[in-house]
């Protein structure tokens, strides 16, 4: 077996390649996933990426991947996908000087789970950063979802740590805003998944 190419850190200088909004290079990804044809509740997700000293990390790159409001992924492995839908479900955001990130998106629906069951609505998240030789993977769940109780993945997480995966719903000028901080280390360390 040949083996895969190892991961290396994204380093401190990725912005002009991956998020070039302040540089002389075209941008193809953004933190706004909403497309005109996307149905479902519009939401904002915001939070900070925080290091082991409790400091915000100003050079992280956060990526999210999610289903549409009907729980379908825009991907060939999801046979229910709508090939002509413009909602792709992928967003990318660089953290600011305080370690803050945000996404404008729509709330995903419940998606199929293992063994024919269902999973509560959630969004997959990858975090890269200077000082991280490899990325971490976590999930954002939503505080107002009764389905969390029966979610087969949350059930694998020690009960006292589940809250780190649940974004708290709030309201700002009539729009739903979910807060989801990512703590890489220390008190309240976010649950990261071994996948």
């Amino acid at each position, binding site marked *: 077996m*040949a083996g895969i190419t*190892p*991961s290396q850190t*994204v380093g401190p*200088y990725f912005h002009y*390649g991956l998020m070039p909004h302040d540089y002389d290079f075209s941008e193809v990804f953004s933190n706004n996933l909403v497309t005109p044809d996307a149905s479902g509740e519009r939401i904002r997700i915001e939070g900070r990426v925080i290091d*082991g000293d409790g400091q915000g990390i100003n050079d992280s790159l956060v990526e999210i991947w999610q289903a549409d409001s009907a729980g379908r992924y825009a*991907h060939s492995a999801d046979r229910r996908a709508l090939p002509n839908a413009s909602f792709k479900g992928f967003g990318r955001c660089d953290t600011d000087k305080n370690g803050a990130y945000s996404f404008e998106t729509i709330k995903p629906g419940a998606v199929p789970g293992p063994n024919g069951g269902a999973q509560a609505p959630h969004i997959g998240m990858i975090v890269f950063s200077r000082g991280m030789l490899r990325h971490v993977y976590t999930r954002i769940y939503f505080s107002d979802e009764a389905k969390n109780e029966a979610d087969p993945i949350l059930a694998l997480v020690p009960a006292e740590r589940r809250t780190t995966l649940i974004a708290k719903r709030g309201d700002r000028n009539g729009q739903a805003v979910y807060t989801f901080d990512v703590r890489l280390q220390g008190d309240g360390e976010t649950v990261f*998944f*071994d996948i």
Partner: protein
Amino acid sequence: MTVYPKESLEAFPPYVFEGYRSTVKRSPRKPLVVIPHTLSELTGPVYGHETVHAGDEDLTKQHAGEPLGERIVVHGRVLDEDGRPVPDTLVEIWQANAAGRYIHVVDQHPAPIDPNFTGAGRTATDAEGRYKFVTVKPGAYPWGNHGNAWRPAHIHFSLFGTSFLSRLVTQMYFPGDPLFEFDPIYGSVTDPKARARMVSSFDLENTVPNWALAYRFDIVLRGRNQTPMEH
């Protein structure tokens, strides 16, 4: 159906590597929670040719003049663990200029900015998984990790592959760099065979006479074909 064996990740460096100081406060300390691969992980962002603009793959032609430095061709194939090509997948790169200076606002290394070089590029693989960039060879540059610390010359690569499980950000190095043995980022990959997969090879066959040296860098992403169960 593509499967993503967990053992494949043994090629990755650890989260904490003491020699690279910034990992100490930016690494999880609690055990990662093992979960099965559900549709949420087995799917992922798929981006290809539609995201690439003409000229994005030639970093020497993005400005009015040509950048200074040694012009090079960097090319290779993106493959899965079975050696099958990963077609039409986005490859994003960024790098320092020939003097070892990033155009990034945070880089204060006192080496010259090149007004004709940004250092960012993207392309998508063809049906055989092939990609190609034209750029200049990046310089080594100093960093503050330890006394007299210098990064070996490298080009940053970002790839999506076939699912969120194949996502990869890595760095391509140049063969025979004398800085390898002093660099904790390169050194964080301790298996010599895995390490070698981060190093490009000089490619005389694709070197363009009177114009540019070529380096070949094949990238292997996680994922293999499901093998039928044996009974």
